[in-house]
């Protein structure tokens, strides 16, 4: 008997014109690892909430059809009864942890069930063991990293003795190390403890080698329901929906003579298929003749520069002797594990805080901490959470906020763009009178950016501009930023965990490790150092990893996308 059976399920949110789920039928056998993919708004999170019993018991709407756990109709069960079979883990670990220490958090569910103390102790111990968090039992939650917090959220769910785990983008707020931590735990729970995993996730490249089955959703319907090796046979459908096909799958489709209809899912599998072929030989030959990266032109004064900068909080040194620069019109990506000092670096440039020692300059002027509104005339900072940047009741008011609230003596500094131009730039002309909180995530992000552009800054600091967006929306926003930069000659400094964005758009990348500049150079050269990057908590894209491995880890530069990798596989003589 399957663990979960969904029978003709439809769900409509109150006030919505069309259902979020349309006649979904599906069954999930025990021990299956199921990936739920699809563009934003396709209904995958709604399906996850329904599977976990939170729809319709806690989130109202019109529900038709049934969900069975074993032979029980979940609508006949109370939410805590469902939670003892199907547990739900949400996106943001900080929002789903109730207590302030690990042990209390994990024990919370069993305590509420009024279990005997010995049973609670056993469950706490087992759950922490399953998630590899045994040694953190007595820790305060605020002292944990994002990945560790998410593992505690999983442990707390397991303490309810759930056999099925439903996870809604559990890694979207995590850095690459945290993401790998959580995914490893899920893999262990599935393979060693035979738990059923239903995972809603955008990071398909990273998860696809481990899943048993892939569901692709669109407009409330399941459009693909296949094992992972067959799920991407209709790659056009994935592309049309803006959901990325794994790079290894794209490669297999492009090299049918090597893969012969087989679909590799991991770098290991692809490497096995390619490493003894003439393609690999071509790649090695090409690697031997590559020229070193061009040194940047220092004749221009940097747009931003950090000179021997140290930053210390209490006794912790966050930044150590940082000397670096951002050149005008450059798109610099700053990457590194959470807590490595990336955001501190950017906040110093904005003047959000002052360094313990050293100087930050914008061109030749020293950046003074606390002079934010003055600094913002030259530098803008797009925060990760766009919602924190919106204050007013309409799009129009939002764009005029800065001008309206400037001091009287500063009012002479008119907006560089007219309101109409700004609305056009951020593609929100038709939403002029709309409430910002009624816009989609991407629209809110564009609006926040538009609000910053009123002052026509020269440098834009972009803090995780793609977090929480699916591949299609993330690419659309990055493309928008690229066009904006080309048109207005802006300089970008982007903090990100999204390596694909770095590969596609950054002209230079800087790796921060333990508060120091660890690596600095064009992405194709930096991503060649896979092992060194791993020590800094960075995992290059699969195609870069494959390129490096095929060159026996001696690659000087690696391909950043499948297209350039395929070009690298061509024999040298056929190149123009």
């Amino acid at each position, binding site marked *: 008997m399957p663990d979960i059976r969904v029978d003709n399920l439809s769900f409509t949110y109150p006030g919505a014109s069309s259902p979020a789920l349309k006649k979904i039928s599906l069954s999930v056998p025990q021990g299956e690892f199921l990936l739920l993919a699809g563009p934003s708004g396709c209904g995958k999170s709604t399906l996850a909430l329904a599977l*976990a*019993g*939170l729809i319709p018991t*806690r*989130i109202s709407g019109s529900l038709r059809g049934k969900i069975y756990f074993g032979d029980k109709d979940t609508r006949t069960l109370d*939410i*805590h009864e*469902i939670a*003892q079979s199907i*547990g*739900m883990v*949400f996106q*943001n670990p*900080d*929002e*789903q942890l*109730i*207590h*302030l*220490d690990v*042990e*209390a958090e994990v*024990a*919370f*569910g*069993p*305590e*509420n*069930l*009024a*279990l005997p*103390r010995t049973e*609670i102790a056993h469950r*706490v111990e087992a759950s922490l063991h399953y998630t590899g968090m045994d040694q953190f039992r007595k820790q*305060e939650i*605020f002292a944990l990293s994002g990945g560790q917090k998410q593992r505690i959220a999983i442990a*707390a769910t397991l303490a*309810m003795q759930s056999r099925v785990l439903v996870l809604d983008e559990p890694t979207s707020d995590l850095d690459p190390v945290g993401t790998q931590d959580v995914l490893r735990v899920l893999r262990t729970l599935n393979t060693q403890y035979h738990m059923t995993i239903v995972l809603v996730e955008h990071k398909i490249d990273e998860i696809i080698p481990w899943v048993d089955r892939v569901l692709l959703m669109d407009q409330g319907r399941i459009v693909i329901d296949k094992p992972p090796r067959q799920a991407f046979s209709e790659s056009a459908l994935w592309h049309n929906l803006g959901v990325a096909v794994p790079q290894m799958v794209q490669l297999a489709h492009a090299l049918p003579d090597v893969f012969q209809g087989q679909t590799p899912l991991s770098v290991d599998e692809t490497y096995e298929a390619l490493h003894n072929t003439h393609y690999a030989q071509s790649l090695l030959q090409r690697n031997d003749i590559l020229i070193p990266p061009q040194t940047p032109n220092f004749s221009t004064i940097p747009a931003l520069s950090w000179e021997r900068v140290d930053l210390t909080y209490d006794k912790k040194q966050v930044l150590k002797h940082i000397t670096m620069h951002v050149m005008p019109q450059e798109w610099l990506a700053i990457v590194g594990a959470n807590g490595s000092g990336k955001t501190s670096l950017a906040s110093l440039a904005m003047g959000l805080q002052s360094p313990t020692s050293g100087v930050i300059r914008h061109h030749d002027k020293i950046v003074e901490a606390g*002079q*934010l*509104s*003055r600094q*913002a005339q030259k530098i803008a*900072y797009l*925060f990760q959470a766009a*919602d*924190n*940047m*919106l*204050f007013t009741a309409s799009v129009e008011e939002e764009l005029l*906020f*800065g*001008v309206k609230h*400037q*001091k009287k003596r*500063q009012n002479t500094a008119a907006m560089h763009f007219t309101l109409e131009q700004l609305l056009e730039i951020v593609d929100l002309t038709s939403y002029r009178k709309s409430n910002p*909180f009624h816009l989609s995530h991407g629209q809110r992000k564009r609006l926040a950016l538009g609000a*910053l552009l*009123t*002052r026509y800054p020269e440098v834009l600091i972009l803090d995780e501009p793609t977090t929480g967006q699916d591949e299609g929306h993330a690419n659309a926003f990055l493309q928008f930023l690229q066009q904006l930069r080309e048109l207005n000659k802006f300089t970008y400094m982007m903090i990100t965990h999204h390596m694909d964005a770095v590969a596609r758009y950054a002209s230079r990348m800087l790796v921060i490790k333990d508060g120091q500049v660890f690596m600095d150079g064009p992405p194709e050269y930096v991503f060649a150092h896979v092992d060194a990057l791993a020590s800094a908590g960075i995992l290059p894209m699969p195609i870069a990893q494959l390129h490096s491995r095929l060159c026996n880890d001696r690659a000087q530069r690696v391909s950043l996308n499948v297209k350039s990798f395929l070009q690298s596989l061509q024999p040298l003589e056929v190149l123009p």
Partner: protein
Amino acid sequence: MIPALTQFFFHTLLGRTIVGYFLFFSVPTILPTVLILLIGVKGLRHLFSYEPHPTVIHKLDPRLKVLYPFTIGLVSVFLNWNFVFLLLAFTLIPWILVRPSQRRIRVVLALVLTPAIGLVWSQGLFYITKNDAAHVLFYFPPTLSWYGTPGLSSTGLLYGLQQAGRVMVATSSSLILLLTTKPSEIIWAFYQFRMPPAVGLAFTAALRYLPQLIERMTVLLQVMQIRGYDLTRPRWWQLHLWPNYIARVFATIPIVTVPLLIGSLRSTSVMALVADARAFGAKPNPTSLQEHPLTINDRIAISALASVVLITLLLIVFHIGNRTA
């Protein structure tokens, strides 16, 4: 020079008006500034956080630590101010045993002294009885009649000092509870005293959300400035810029409230779903993983607390330390 100044400030209408305004507005202006300077917005995040240390106080039974501020607060109500300050000295013993971090000491001092000073000041101005004329230290001139108080009185200041003692006793004993007890232990203790579980959950949620709320507010204020809203603090001598600065600071309140509320509501809705999924409220009598058998240190602490109560009773019975005002 000095006689001339004395003449001006105490014997002319203009001088007395200036002194009156200074007396009235200096403390309400200075106290919040001192509080922010000593604690800071970032410091507020850790205001009520637990600070782990392997001390005797940390290891005491949480029930005892929850009872402690209630008992001390209650006792202080019945004692006269001499003994209230003796009680304040008693509440310092746990602090000496805990030896908190310097940052925490700064926060505690700010939290204890700021309301105390405010209380002394307000009582000095407004606690004036009909026959108190002889104790008025400074009479407000007719230009300040709208204050509704004749002036600053020594009786009022003394009364404020007595009340401040009680406030300081309560704050000191409450803060030691929060500093040395995990929230889960506090809730466990509350459950042992038959408190409804929802109150315990609300308490935890508040402690959990306070740092996030402050963090979010900090970001919002930074965003406002980045978007052109000038909150640059003038130098202390640029007196003409301060009124506008203060007005701009106050004007931020309605602007940040909406996003702050929306963000908080979104966060709490997820937490509510999680609490439901973890069977919160499913059983009338939840159990607990925690167990706190009474130790010798607990017994010593109980004895000390019981002694305080007993001594208070004796002081009252023998009319030695009874409260008079």
